[in-house]
């Protein structure tokens, strides 16, 4: 058999053109499978890392998924608001370390506007407890000087081309109704956040007081006729928020989380609910994770197609090799040798292809990872293969070897039937 190995290698080298095509097609299939899997897990990670370091999210009573959707992902609207009194009341619970109220509902050119306190920029964590960082500028000041200051997320700045000092106006609601603009009270961009790969990137942040100020002369979702309060006049009003949409809660210790959750859920003043973000995000992922399974199915099909290609290439090459196999038979090689020869070649080709594909996927993540992070907010990790990736790699190898047995067995049967004359 060892003598055969050298022959197999030289024969394969002689057909390196066709074989390298097969290697490349297996490499591409492996690359697709591995990067799909990498993306799948990393998208999931990006998703579940939308918020961390927050122990509870508090809002008006609704479903946990719904609350997460509007409080964290700024999608859809809240059915009810939370009175600011209630938020202050909850903040007084002895286990609560901090509370960041959030007021949503307005938008700026399709991006959500979040009214909050400057503490948000310190308290809000994402991913693996990473804090928000400013790419440029600083947070709004939180007092009357900072009333018309705004901090924009990375994607807002990039897509709209915003730089520090830019004047922006907010729209009432989702911005769908023409004329529902808070055009009389423009904001100045004072800070641009670094990319996070979370909904923060797509958010314009202003102070809670600013939200109050732009709605002073509004009522029932439209400007009040005959009433106009100039931006400077607005500073003289009481801008303390009466109600907010939701609040993020940080606790002094994780142990109290269920006690505080119960405290909020049983709050007598109004119907409220508190959810654990991690649990709710998992629930939410179950809803949106259908696409993930579609992705997985797609990559399985890609693998099947390229392995079918491998079988086709080897089978097509078999006819041109019938003479070669007949020569080997005539000098004493048995059908077993022929089978072994073809199987060894197939296994080697599959191994090379899979290794090349794995290498390419690493290179791809290394080369395109930062770009994908900046562009799509998906943080691709350059890490050791996951168990699922090892599984996929193993599946490619097993399937490739099995596929190479098909032509091997065909050659075995041909060499039995042909005798020594391949023309037959």
């Amino acid at each position: 058999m060892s003598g055969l190995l050298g022959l197999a290698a030289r024969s394969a080298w002689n057909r390196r053109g066709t074989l390298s095509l097969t290697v490349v097609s297996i490499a591409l299939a492996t690359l697709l499978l591995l990067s799909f899997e990498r993306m799948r897990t990393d998208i999931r990670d990006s998703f579940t890392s939308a918020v961390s370091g927050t122990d509870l999210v508090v809002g008006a009573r609704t479903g946990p998924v719904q609350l997460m959707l509007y409080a964290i992902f700024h999608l859809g609207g809240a059915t009810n608001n939370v009175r600011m009194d209630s938020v202050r009341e909850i903040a007084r619970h002895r286990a609560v370390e901090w509370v960041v109220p959030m007021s949503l509902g307005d938008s700026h050119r399709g991006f959500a506007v979040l009214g909050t306190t400057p503490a948000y920029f310190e308290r809000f964590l994402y991913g693996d407890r990473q804090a928000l960082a400013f790419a440029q500028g600083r947070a709004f000041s939180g007092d009357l000087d900072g009333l018309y200051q705004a901090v924009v997320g990375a994607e807002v700045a990039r897509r709209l081309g915003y730089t520090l000092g830019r004047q922006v106006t907010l729209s009432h609601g989702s911005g769908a109704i023409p004329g529902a603009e808070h055009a009389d009270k423009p904001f100045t961009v004072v800070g641009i956040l670094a990319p996070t790969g979370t909904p923060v990137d797509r958010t314009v942040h202003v102070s809670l007081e600013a939200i109050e100020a732009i709605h002073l002369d509004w009522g029932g979702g439209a400007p009040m006729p005959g009433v106009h309060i100039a931006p400077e006049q607005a500073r003289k009003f009481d801008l303390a928020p009466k109600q907010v949409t939701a609040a993020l809660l940080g606790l002094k210790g994780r142990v109290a989380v269920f006690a505080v959750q119960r405290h909020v859920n049983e709050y007598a003043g109004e119907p409220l609910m508190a959810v654990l973000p991690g649990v709710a995000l998992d629930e939410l992922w179950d809803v949106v994770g259908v696409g993930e399974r579609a992705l997985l199915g797609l990559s399985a099909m890609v693998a099947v197609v390229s392995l079918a290609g491998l079988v086709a290439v080897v089978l097509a090459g078999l006819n041109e090799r019938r003479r070669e196999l007949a020569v080997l038979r005539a000098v004493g090689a048995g059908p077993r040798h022929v089978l072994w020869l073809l199987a060894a070649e197939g296994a080697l080709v599959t191994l090379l292809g899979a290794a090349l594909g794995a290498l390419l996927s690493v290179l791809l993540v290394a080369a395109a990872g930062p770009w994908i992070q900046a562009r799509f907010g998906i943080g691709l990790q350059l890490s050791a293969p996951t168990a699922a990736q090892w599984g996929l790699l193993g599946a490619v190898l097993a399937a490739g070897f099995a596929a190479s047995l098909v032509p091997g067995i065909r050659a075995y049967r041909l060499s039995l039937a042909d005798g020594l004359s391949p023309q037959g």
Partner: protein
Amino acid sequence: MIEIRQLRYAWPRAGHDVLAIDAFEVAAGERVFVHGPSGCGKSTLLGLLAGVLLPREGEVRLLGRSWASLSGARRDAMRADHVGYIFQQFNLLPWLDAVGNVTLPCRFSSTRRQRAAAAAGDVERAAASLLARVGLAERDWHRPAAQLSVGQQQRVAAARALIGAPEVVIADEPTSALDAPLRDAFMDLLLGACRDAGSALVFVSHDERLAAPFDRRVSLPALNRVRAEVPT
């Protein structure tokens, strides 16, 4: 050396026999010319002699052993040890040089390897001396077979069939792709080299002009008791 007794052979899934030979022998060192028109079963007969095909009935013996009594792997080993085979054409692995092609049987048979080494010192030198014997110029020894002319390739094939002095050399119309001067030169080489090696030669051809130098000539249609089918 070779004995055929009451042989009946039908191709798999064919309803009728193509060969029916009651008795045929080849003695050690004997050179036998088997002739017959195309399609009379010559290649099939050679497949049976080489143990690649097995008879439906009767037996084919090589060195006293019936092919049918051996396992597939033993048949392969037996063929590698004792039979040299030459095709009409395309005898060589095109990507291997002449010397590599000649030494091929030694990769599968330790008997042939030992005999070749005993004769010339080592396998490579045995190949070289055979290539010299069949008249291949030394500058062509290390060229890939694909670059050799058809005549050169057939000479390399003859050298390969003879390396390690197998008891039997089987040649299946090895001159059919050669023109007259090349053919005659090849016949001289093959017969002479077989005599030198002491190998028996079973040479099959439709060209009866080649028969003269052989010890014996046999007509396959006369030997075969299945009448050749007349095309309708």
